[in-house]
């Protein structure tokens, strides 16, 4: 899959907004450059308030950037990008099948055809037999599987994942991480994954892009050179711990700086 194309190329992305209370202009994201090659799994890692979710929404077109440029690699059919939302965000009035088909319906595919094309993705994410269930009948992990299947079904060039496992309990989260790698491998997708968990980012990614808060900016871009496929046991290897430690130091260092200079942080 590494054809050398860039699935996503962002240059100088900036996001300002006016605080309604104080009337001051705040800089949420400052000058972010990011390249995601075709087929890669890249994570955006940072504390809350670093603008990583905002950046994802800008890429997705849900928010307009104040300045900067986003280029998404065009594919012949389908959308350039598809979002996997933080909370599963399924429609309670639709069955699993109709929820998964919804992205295609948005793209103008008829409902019947959309359902037909959605079905294999339900199987891919391990929800076979749950087509006719409704979201409230599913566990949190299963809802996230449906959320993922909906994004996969539109066959986009890049998947944007906004902390999709943040609300899950620790064990389910680990399982879903392993599942995601399996699906990523099977679907041959490019992924831009937003998270605040260091171990999650290291485990999943080819590259971890570390961000700092106030204003949100990229402070490091770290290649994760761990062999694939990665079983969950890789998390207990010394190599893995070294990556975790290195990233942790980066984030802690930023935090210390921000604390030492509180004026600069506001």
């Amino acid at each position, binding site marked *: 899959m590494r054809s050398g194309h860039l699935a996503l190329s962002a240059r100088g992305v900036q996001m300002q907004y006016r605080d309604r209370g104080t009337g001051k202009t705040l800089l949420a994201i400052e000058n972010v450059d990011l390249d995601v090659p075709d087929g890669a799994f890249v994570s955006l890692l940072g504390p809350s308030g670093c603008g990583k979710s905002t950046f994802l929404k800008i890429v997705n077109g849900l928010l307009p950037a104040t300045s900067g440029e986003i280029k998404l690699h065009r594919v012949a059919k389908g959308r350039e990008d598809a979002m996997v939302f933080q909370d599963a965000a399924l429609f309670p009035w639709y069955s699993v099948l109709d929820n998964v088909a919804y992205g295609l319906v*948005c793209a103008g595919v008829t409902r019947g055809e959309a359902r037909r094309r959605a079905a294999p993705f339900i199987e891919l994410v391990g929800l076979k037999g749950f087509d006719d269930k409704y979201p409230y009948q599913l566990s949190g992990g299963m809802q996230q599987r449906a959320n993922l299947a909906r994004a996969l079904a539109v066959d986009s060039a890049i998947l944007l994942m906004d902390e999709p496992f943040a609300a899950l309990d620790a064990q389910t989260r680990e399982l879903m991480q392993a599942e995601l790698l399996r699906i990523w491998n099977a679907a041959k997708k490019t992924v831009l994954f937003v998270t605040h968990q260091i171990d999650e980012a290291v485990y999943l990614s080819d590259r971890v892009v570390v961000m700092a808060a106030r204003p949100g900016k990229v402070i490091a871009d770290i290649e994760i050179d761990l062999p694939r496929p990665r079983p969950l046991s890789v998390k207990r290897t010394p190599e893995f711990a070294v990556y975790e430690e290195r990233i942790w130091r980066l984030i802690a260092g930023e935090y210390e700086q921000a604390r030492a200079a509180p004026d600069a942080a506001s």
Partner: protein
Amino acid sequence: MIAAREAPAVQLLGRLRSRNERVFYGVIGFVGLTLAWEIAANSGLFRKSLLSTPSAIWKAGVTDIGAGTLWPHVATSLEEFAIGFIVSLAIAIPLGLAIGWFRRIDYLLNGLLAALNATPNVALIPLIILVAGIGFESKVIVVFLSTFFAVVVTTFTGVQSIARRHLEITRSFGGSRWLAFRTVALPSTTPYILSGVRIGAGRALVGVVSAEFISANQGLGFYIGFFGTFLDTARVMLGIVLFGIFGVVLGELLRVIEHRFDVWRPELHR
């Protein structure tokens, strides 16, 4: 062993109770109150001519149904209610959706509708009778208006309460605003619309009775008022009981429908 010797009737009661406690105790409450009323009246606790008795109401009902003098009144009230109610829903729901979906229509009509919704509709009845006469039409208009404001207000409130992230999904996948309306706004608003329909039905019932009291020549409200002037309390009570039954049956039916859509409520999906 002791249980096996209980009388069959007692066993039957026990079985009925365990099957549906709610209904079982509900029936006991109803039967108990009716009996207490009957006994209290017959033992001279109050004058029968003032509050009548269940047996007298029953007798009056049997007589009037047999003579064919009750049904025309019931039919008139039902018809006034049905026409006014259905026409009202047909206009109020689309209007409420439009107000909720289009900001400018909201600005245009919101204040006006909120004020009219807050006005007790009964206050409008004398004016309506003045304009539309004492016949069928004025009652239909009263029912229409009583339903209308409740349904419009709950419907546009429903549209405005849509979970933002639900709308974001359509936008994220490149769906049109019209698609968002059909696939997100409509289902998300349905529980609100149904609440409005239930509230509107209650108000419409009050509207029918009030309008028929004030002036009419037909209808169940007229029947109650008419026999009230003759101190025929059994027939007054009969009218009240019939309205009560209609109100309970309709209310419960609408509540059951409403309940089915509860999981669609946007406040559960913020």
